[in-house]
């Protein structure tokens, strides 16, 4: 599977060197995928922010460091929780959708029909979707980070008396470029993984309807796993590029 997936990725990079680009299709998929995931990642982000602040609050208090609550919450959300949670939900929602959609197009010969009519189905169906997931996930992530910070603020207000402006100021003070930039940048990779895995599983689906179901579920499993593995690698890389302790 790894070889198949890599070959698929190589073909993607080969195709994107040559115009024309299906800009309309890419835009259409971005809007569709974005709209589809916006509510669920919003709710999750809010709860995660709230919970992480509730959890950190007594711990920091134990060390007499309550004042660092906004900062530490902000850093954990921006560096790790926002991007990864958003990516995992995105994988669950979108990778499976792409897997099922392309899978059913494959088994009902729609992809063959496209090929026969002289249209390159890889460009039309696969490249556009991978583009869309790669560029929509960072946008969703920024949105999730923002919502999470609101959730965290509510938890903070419950234990400390703090205005929104002061809270935000504390967060911005604590979060450095070396936190925010890699945090958001890695989601381009995650988005790429989601699109690539979903499209690969769907495009290569076999065995009729059963294959479509398989393509859909295994897309989620594989893309989630790959996101976590890449996250590990990227965290290591980030720490090397932007050491937190100077």
């Amino acid at each position: 599977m790894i070889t198949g997936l890599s070959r698929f990725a190589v073909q993607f990079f080969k195709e994107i060197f040559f115009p024309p680009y299906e800009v309309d299709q890419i835009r259409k998929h971005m809007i569709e995928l974005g709209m589809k995931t916006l509510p669920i990642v919003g709710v999750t982000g809010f709860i995660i922010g709230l919970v992480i602040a509730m959890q950190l609050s007594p711990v920091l208090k134990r060390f007499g460091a309550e004042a660092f609550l906004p900062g530490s919450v902000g850093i954990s959300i921006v560096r790790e929780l926002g991007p990864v949670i958003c990516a995992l939900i995105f994988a669950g929602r979108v990778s499976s959708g792409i897997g099922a959609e392309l899978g059913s197009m494959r088994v009902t010969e729609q992809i063959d029909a496209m090929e026969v009519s002289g249209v390159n189905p890889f460009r039309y169906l696969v490249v556009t979707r991978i583009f869309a997931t790669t560029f929509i996930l960072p946008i969703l992530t920024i949105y999730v980070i923002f919502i999470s910070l609101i959730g965290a603020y509510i938890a903070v207000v419950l234990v400390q008396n703090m205005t929104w402006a002061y809270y935000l100021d504390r967060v911005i003070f604590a979060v450095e470029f070396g936190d925010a930039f890699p945090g958001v940048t890695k989601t381009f990779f995650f988005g790429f993984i989601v699109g690539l895995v979903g499209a690969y599983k769907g495009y290569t689906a076999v065995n009729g309807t059963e294959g479509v179901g398989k393509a859909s579920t295994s897309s989620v499993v594989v893309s989630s796993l790959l996101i976590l593995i890449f996250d590990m690698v990227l965290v290591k890389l980030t720490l090397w590029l932007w050491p937190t302790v100077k």
Partner: protein
Amino acid sequence: MMVEVNELHKSFNSNVVLDGVSFKVSDAENMVVFGRSGTGKSVLLKCMIRLMLPDSGNISIQGKDVLGLNIKELNELRKDIGFLFQGSALYDSMTVKENLEFPLIRNFDLDEKEINSRVNFVLEAVSLLDAMNKMPSELSGGMRKRIGLARSIITKPKLMLYDEPTTGLDPITAKEISVLINELQHALKMTSIVVTHDLLCAKIIADRAIVLDSGKIVKEGSINELTASSDPLLKNFFSDEIIETSGRGK
């Protein structure tokens, strides 16, 4: 010569599907391919348009070596070929109209007026003008088949490959479709290869027929010759009687 297929072999693992198939189809000829379910008729059509690669053999269409073309040349050739899939293969995220326009917008440099008039023409031909703005999921199986047919002829191909155009249709529609295919062949000077089990359809369409069995062409001739044949396989195929055919077919 429109089509020349030479010694085509195709296996899936140990399952030998095509075992040396050769035939020719001349310009503006309608050829019917008979064969029992699973004898590789669909595989044969797919090899001809290079959706599947045969293990060995040659295919020439309009004098071009199909298997030797590069992608660009292949797509150029495919513009001249229409393909009706056994399961219609309509794009289910597009309306009927978008389905029909898709090959035209993508590959042909036509203005909107011409595209609209062609859409109307083919929809009228399959008597489904009122389905123009429906989604494929709102159509019955037979309607989907007719839209599939409309989509495959909208580019005015020189060669049409039909995979069971009348299967799953009621007898009246089946007859209408067969007549339509026959008319199109005359009107557009198309060459067609038609895979079918439908004897009536074959009688309406065919100039000539071949019979595929166990990976080989076992019989070739006019429909009348085939139906009059005393070969047990053909008798089984064309008559109501059941005749013992030991070892033949699957």
